[in-house]
């Protein structure tokens, strides 16, 4: 538990995709709307599979949507 170390631009990508709603995105990637909301708020780090699914929906790469903000070793 704690602050999620992965930031994302999902909200921006949704806006640029004809203002896609959280519910619409959730249905496309097979999760609940609450999970999309939690990801956008930084309360949940999605699995790699879900990150790929989201990236595919927006025709982008994972790096364009998600960024790791943790400490570098």
């Amino acid at each position, binding site marked *: 538990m704690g602050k999620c170390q992965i930031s994302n631009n999902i909200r921006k990508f949704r806006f640029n995709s004809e203002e896609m709603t959280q519910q619409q995105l959730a249905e496309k990637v097979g999760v609940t709307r609450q999970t999309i*909301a939690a990801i956008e708020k930084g309360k949940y780090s999605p699995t790699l599979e879900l990150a790929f699914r989201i990236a595919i929906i927006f025709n982008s790469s994972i790096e364009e949507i998600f960024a790791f903000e943790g400490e570098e070793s």
Partner: protein
Amino acid sequence: MTYQEKRTVVSIISTVAVFTAYCLYIVQKYQNGGLNPAEDIRFWGITILIFIPIQIVANIIITIVFTIIHAIVTREEDDPGFTDERDKIISLKANQISYVIVGIGFLLSMIPLVMGMAPFVMINIVYLSFNVADITGNVIQLVFYQRGV
């Protein structure tokens, strides 16, 4: 508060309600003099065997009633109808903590036996630990849903 958080709160209320009913039943039985707790092991076995299915059925009924009322009050289908990866991770983490509490409860229940106390104390500690584990697991789920996982 999301649908999952509300459902978790309802589950906590359900568990507390049934456990309270159990406690009231035992106290009433004791006050009526119909209970010899030090000797009647059979009574405790029957009581717990009755209350466990009651707890399961009560939980199912209360959850169904909650879903119906929630749908009527909010006038929207907030119930996703399935559990996704986040729900599963939260559930797994909460279950891990619940198992630890049940384990601790079982170990603690051995103490009355070692001290030569009546077996009903051990039985009730085990039953209490199941309920505490259930409630704690739900509280942990609530915390994970609100703070993130």
